[in-house]
């Protein structure tokens, strides 16, 4: 018997595996975002388009705490207006964050939200949020940025406290 020859097809198959896996690493980026949206993985919050009607149980109360932070090199003071609220799951609430540009330049920034515990992230939905778009701060300007959110009643009963935190990042323009 003769030894097998290495065919062209075998070659193509063999080399295409590492090439495909290299692109798979890049494909993990959108896959990861989809996974985070579906599962609330990594504290990613969701959004709702309209003021949806939920089944409301007035008896149940959840405490929502608000936190704010800024990344290094972001020269805007940033804090929640209220540090916490008692909310009824299924009802929409308004609150706001206050930011003050302490410099004499125009600053651009983007806020990124995160919810803990992760199991709550899936059921924390925002109708309006200053984090949806990039923010522009005029020199010395103080702005109140609003947020309208709902905690869905589907959230597990064991979760009594939810933390929402925003981190502001500087954008160049």
């Amino acid at each position: 018997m003769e030894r097998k020859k290495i065919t062209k097809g075998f070659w193509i198959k063999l080399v295409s595996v590492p090439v495909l896996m290299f692109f798979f690493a890049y494909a993990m980026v959108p896959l990861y975002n989809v996974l985070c949206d579906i599962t609330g993985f990594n504290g990613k919050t969701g959004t709702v388009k309209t003021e949806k009607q939920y089944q409301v149980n007035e008896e149940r109360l959840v405490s929502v705490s608000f936190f704010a932070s800024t990344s290094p090199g972001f020269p805007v003071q940033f804090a929640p207006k209220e540090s916490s609220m008692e909310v009824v799951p299924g009802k929409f609430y308004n609150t706001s964050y206050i930011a003050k540009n302490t410099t004499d330049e125009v600053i651009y920034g983007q806020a990124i939200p995160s919810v803990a515990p992760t199991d709550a992230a899936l059921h924390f939905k925002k109708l309006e949020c200053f984090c949806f778009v990039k923010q522009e701060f005029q020199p010395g300007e103080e702005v109140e940025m609003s947020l309208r959110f709902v905690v869905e009643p589907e959230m597990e009963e064991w979760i009594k406290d939810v933390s929402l935190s925003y981190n502001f990042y500087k954008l160049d323009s």
Partner: protein
Amino acid sequence: MSSTNTLDTNNHENHEDHHHAPPSGIGRWLFSTNHKDIGTMYLIFSLVMLFLGGGMAMLIRAELYYPGLQFLEPDLFNNMVTTHALIMVFGVVMPAAAGMANWMVPLQIGAPDMALPRMNNWSFWILPFAGAILLSTFFMEGGAPAFGWTFYAPLSTTFAPDSTDFFIFAVHLLGFSSIMGAINIIATVLNMKAPEMRLMDMPLFVWTWLITSFLLIGAMPVLAGAVTMMLTDRNFGTAFFDATGGGDPVMFQHIFWFFGHPEVYIMILPAFGIISHIIPTFARKPLFGYSSMVYATASIAFLSYIVWAHHMFLTGMPVAGELYFMYATMLIAVPTGVKVFNWVATMWKGSMTFETPMLWALSFVFLFTIGGFSGLMLGIAPADIQYHDTYFVVAHFHYVLVTGALWGIIAAVFYWLPKWTGKMYNEPLAKVHFWLALISVNVTFFPQHFLGLAGMPRRIPDYALQFADFNYISSIGSFAFGLSFILFTYIVVDCIRNGKPADARPWGSAKGLEWTLATPVAYHTFDEPPTRAEILAESQHS
């Protein structure tokens, strides 16, 4: 027992005309396409890197000998921790395993050489350059990488020194080298094996390396992708791992560990194959459960792709995610348990003798299992909250990588050294070396379990006073362990220079096509593939 080999002598008479003797001088090594020469170069490279990486480990242990800062600035300590790991993983264990594959896979499947000999040369010669680029970062402004071998973003993107770009390039090269090596091994095994050899006749070292190669071509490109994203994040304004631009640093960990977990099996599977040859030889029994060994190896390889996030239990995963990754991790214990059971069952009622390779193989089974059990403990999500990033993790992966992967490689060196060199090493001295290494490695790493359980964090140059005693013991053990490799090198050099001639089958009961060849192995072998009868006579089947 040691049947003389008509096959090989025949080859030589018939084919002398078209074979050249090895070229002389440096050209033999620089331009070599011979699998034996390239295998030798891989092994020598990995021994040199072992001393470099080991030297760094000695400095780390010297710093940790007493509490407080003595020898190393914290930054330099971080450089040492990072480069020690990178060198040991990419410069020692992987090249040594690749060197073994180069030497042994063609011999074990009756092939005349690797399928792609020129690419083989390239795979090897990339390595010294990649190693040099990695080490050159020590002499650059800002110092060598100091973010640990896992190079988590943003530590390795936003906050890393400029030398990180050289580190990225070195990782790219190392990846190219191992992907080409893996493609070569797959092509060799599937196309070059003796036509009469069926897949389920293949020796287990060939099987484990074939499966390792598939892990390599699947996992290494993902690492290349991760470092490429780092590169563009650092220099070209992308934001894969930067939340400012909509990226996510936690995603770095997912991509990294999607490579990182298969990587640990890339390092251990070849050792599994080696042990599956040594134990039957010295127990004088066929390997118990050959086919279950093949299937267990394949299942381990498959599972290794779907458990990565057990390295990240503390990143804030939903409970369902933690449960999935915990159970999937536990599942790996099943095929691994099958392998350990088979090794023990092979020894059951065997006529065992305890030559040096067997001593290494036996201690491998015992010590690797200890490392496996501490791995199970770490895989339990709630318990991992306590163990995460402590010395318990350090103890765990040194048990599986030093007394696992490295042990397998050393066992293989003693097992096949007579075949490679045609000479016998100094058996009493090799036994002294074994006991020195066995005792010192346990003195080094066993106390680190206790340190970790007591809460000592890893990668920190200083520690609280209550950790002083165990660190003191661990450091003393590590110095003895480091010295044992000087003895190891002496034994190997002494064997090559002064060893007594060895038989073609120095271990009377050894099976495998490599033992049918004359000793020392000729420069070219298996021009004519072995026959079905020869293959069956040398197979691992019971």
